[in-house]
């Protein structure tokens, strides 16, 4: 890893944060963590991550909104967005891509696949 890539994880499930943060750190990424939508927005204000791993159903701001914000904003649109959601219906997935997502992964996901996809998106 020549340059350390910045990855933001947004989820209100602490167990997801715990596991994915551990996984990414172990694989040499710079990891930012947000426990809800507001925290995620605050982080994006300061810095533009290379990749955002985004949950959809959160009590305050939902993931679609955050994704749309990132992709519509000149400053942030370079960030790749991967939805990680338990919403498995086709409409939900399609809506995610409409909002500009680069990838939509349905929970429970494979951490191995996630790593591969992140790798692909970053090259």
């Amino acid at each position, binding site marked *: 890893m020549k340059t350390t890539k910045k990855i933001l994880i947004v989820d209100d*499930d602490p167990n*997801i944060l715990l596991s994915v943060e551990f996984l990414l750190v172990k694989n040499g990424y710079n990891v930012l963590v947000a426990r809800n939508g507001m925290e995620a927005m605050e982080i994006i204000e300061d810095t533009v991550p290379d990749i955002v791993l985004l949950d959809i159903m959160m009590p305050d701001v939902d993931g679609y909104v955050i994704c749309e914000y990132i992709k519509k904003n000149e400053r942030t649109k370079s960030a790749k967005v991967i939805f990680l959601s*338990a919403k*498995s219906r086709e409409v939900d997935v399609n809506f995610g891509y409409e909002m500009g997502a680069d990838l939509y992964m349905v929970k429970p996901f494979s951490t191995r696949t996630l790593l591969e996809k992140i790798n692909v998106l970053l090259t």
Partner: protein
Amino acid sequence: MNIWLMLFVTLLYLVLLFVVAYVAEKKQVLSNKWSPFIYALSIGVYCTAWTFYGSIGRATISGPDFLAIYVGPILLMPLFWGFYRKIIKISKVQKITSIADFISARYGKNISLGALVAIVCIVGIIPYISLQIKAIADSFDILSASSNSASSTTAIQTWKPIIVTIVLGFFIMLFGTSKIDASEKHRGLVSAIAFESIVKLFAFFIGGVFIVIYVLNNYSSIEIQQNPRLQHLFTFNSESGYLSWFGMSILSFTAFVFLPRQFQLGVIENKDDEHLKTAIWVFPLYLILINLLVIPVAVAGILFYNGQAYNPDYTLLSLPGALHADSVSMIVFLGGFSAATGMIIVETIALSTMFSNNILIPIILSVPALKNKFFTQVLKSIKWIRRISILFLLMLSYLYFQYVAGKYSLVSIGLISFAAVAQFAPSVMFGIYWKRANKLASLAGIGFGISIWFFTLVMPTLITANLLPSSISEFGLFGISWLKPNSLFGIAISDHITHAFFWSILMNLIAFVSISLFTEQSSDEVTQAELFVDIDQYSSSYEQSFIRSGNVNIADLRSLLASFIGEQKSKQLYRQYFLRNQLEVPNDDQKADQSVITYTEKILSGVIGAASARIILQSMMKDEVVRMNDVVNLLKESQQILQLNKELSNKSSELSKAYDALSKANTKLKQIDQLKDEFLYTVTHELRTPLTSVRAFTEIMHDHPDMDETKRQEFLKVMVGEMERLSKLITQVLDLEKLESGKQVLHLTELPAEQLVNKIVDAFKPSFEKDAQSIEVRVSTDKTVQVDVDLLERVFVNIIGNAKKYLPLENGNVLITVSEIEKNIQIDIEDNGPGIPMEQRLNVFDKFYQIHQSKKNNVGGSGLGLSICKKIIDLHKGQIAVEESVWSGAKFIIQIPLN
């Protein structure tokens, strides 16, 4: 006058009559608006030679009495208009061919009744026909005698009546048997008769006006008024009295309706019952006009002959002759001739129809050998039966004329005929208004009536003709004094016609009504009674309304009908029938349904009468069994067709309501289905969250065997927690499913409410104490409840467990109150936690509704707990709700009904 000239003119007149009939038959000369008038004039056949000549005779002898027989039709016709119209309607629907057919059809198409009526008609009317022959013969004599020319023509004088009879016979055969369907309209015949009505009225006026001008003008009005021999002409005869007038009016009205010729023209030849509206004023007007000059002519006769002997009946003919006005005489003669021939023609046709349809054909059909012959050549047979009937009847009339009628005046014979047909009045009148009227009653009524008629009116004539001993009229039959023909039961009514009419009709009525009341009808009679009395209901649905069982196919029926009316026509009729009823044309070998059979019977009735048609169809359906109950039931059904239609439309609206309800239910089911989908989706969604953690941690630990022990322990702990969450969720989903599907069985135990609560609270107490929280129970009732203890415990565990989770870290407090409120045990569970926001209180019992929406804060349950609680309370027919507690926390209120 030259007798050859007279014969020539007479023949010429007959030819003219034939031309009128022929032309009218072949093409329509007059437009339709004239047909009501033609109809009205054709009813003028009521005025026979008896009117034309006899009225003057009767007026000469007894004054205005002659008017009595015109008063009846003039006064009663407007009154009984509806009655007459009903007869017409029934006849049209049932294809009635004669009065005999009408009565027979009303009483179950009974053969003997039809035959009886036909016989009464023939016996009663033959003298009347011979009367017309006599009038023609007499008028011939008078006219030829007025010129004292040829003595060489005596041979013709003698043979004249028979010649006239034979010529008329052929004429009638041409008219009457050209069509085989006797119920069909004979436009030619009707037109010819209407023409004759005009001729006789015209002739009467020519003769009458001539006499008034050339005879009456020679006398001053004072001379006329004071002449003692004329006085009776201007005063009503008080001797015969009002009773006689009244009797005559009724009698003449019944005659007007029931005389075969009147029935033929007034009912059977009626094209449209609307024509009655014209006839109702044209016909009375005609009667008034034709009687207008009767008195003046009678006066003129008395004055002219001035005491000399003369036959007053023929004043109208003899006076112009005496004044040598040959052309006037000739015209009057033709008028009288037309009056006589009109009557003879129609009466003979009507009688021959009855004679053949009600007497001859039933006889033929009952003799197998004749029947077979009949069927081999039906068309020809019927024609010949008709022709023979006509000749037979005319010959009978001629013989009567030759041997009996010579001895009587015109009027008395006519009235005897009137009294005979009056016997049909009860059978017809009751028959079309009273369903109970039955066959036996009709047979007995007519039988009794005609017997008395015979005894009181015919026997005296036979006695006078020396055919019976005169002792009968002097001392009564068998010497019984109250059986005298002219004073039955010792009650003498001055006028022997009124006397006979009164007694015969009285006996007829008594027999008719009492038998109808005390005897039952057969199924056929019930059917026909319905059809006649309720004609307005059935007129359109006649074919449907009559049912009989039978086994016959379409081809059989058609070939049967074809033998009567021809192949072509029967085919056409059936095609029309199926078309009209919007039915598919069935195959030949298809079984004919009841309506087709009834239709065939109806057509056949038009040809050979109702009774004969019935016999033929019955013989065709050998295995026919008319089940009384079936007929009555089906009849009732058809009677209730309107009612049924109503019910059907009600039913269909009910159906559409049911459809609405169904589609609503369907929508609801779809919604439920959608909810189910939603639930399933939510469940899988809820499962995904813990699964995600478990999978992630498992993979990570597998892929990083080098991770440090504390991290590993941490991860494993999370995994255990998530696994618990998973299994709890699965249990709850299954529980909920069980409760919702109704598979949950309640194991009810009766125990004090206090005990129920305490058991749970005791179980919770250690954990509360451990966390320095308090839980307290207050009980104010000793009532017992019937509950499933296990299920209710789950409710309390859930609610108390929830409360405990959200209690503040310090001074957490849960209070449980058990009380009795309005036949319910109420259990309140209050806490001093954060409480539930107002707007969410209704939703907390919904599935997967989570107050803080945060699925993953580790505090939260599955979101199914409260749904399960509500379901359990519902099963106990109780209620559960949530409010705000006194400490602004949550307060769950559970009510369970006592017993």
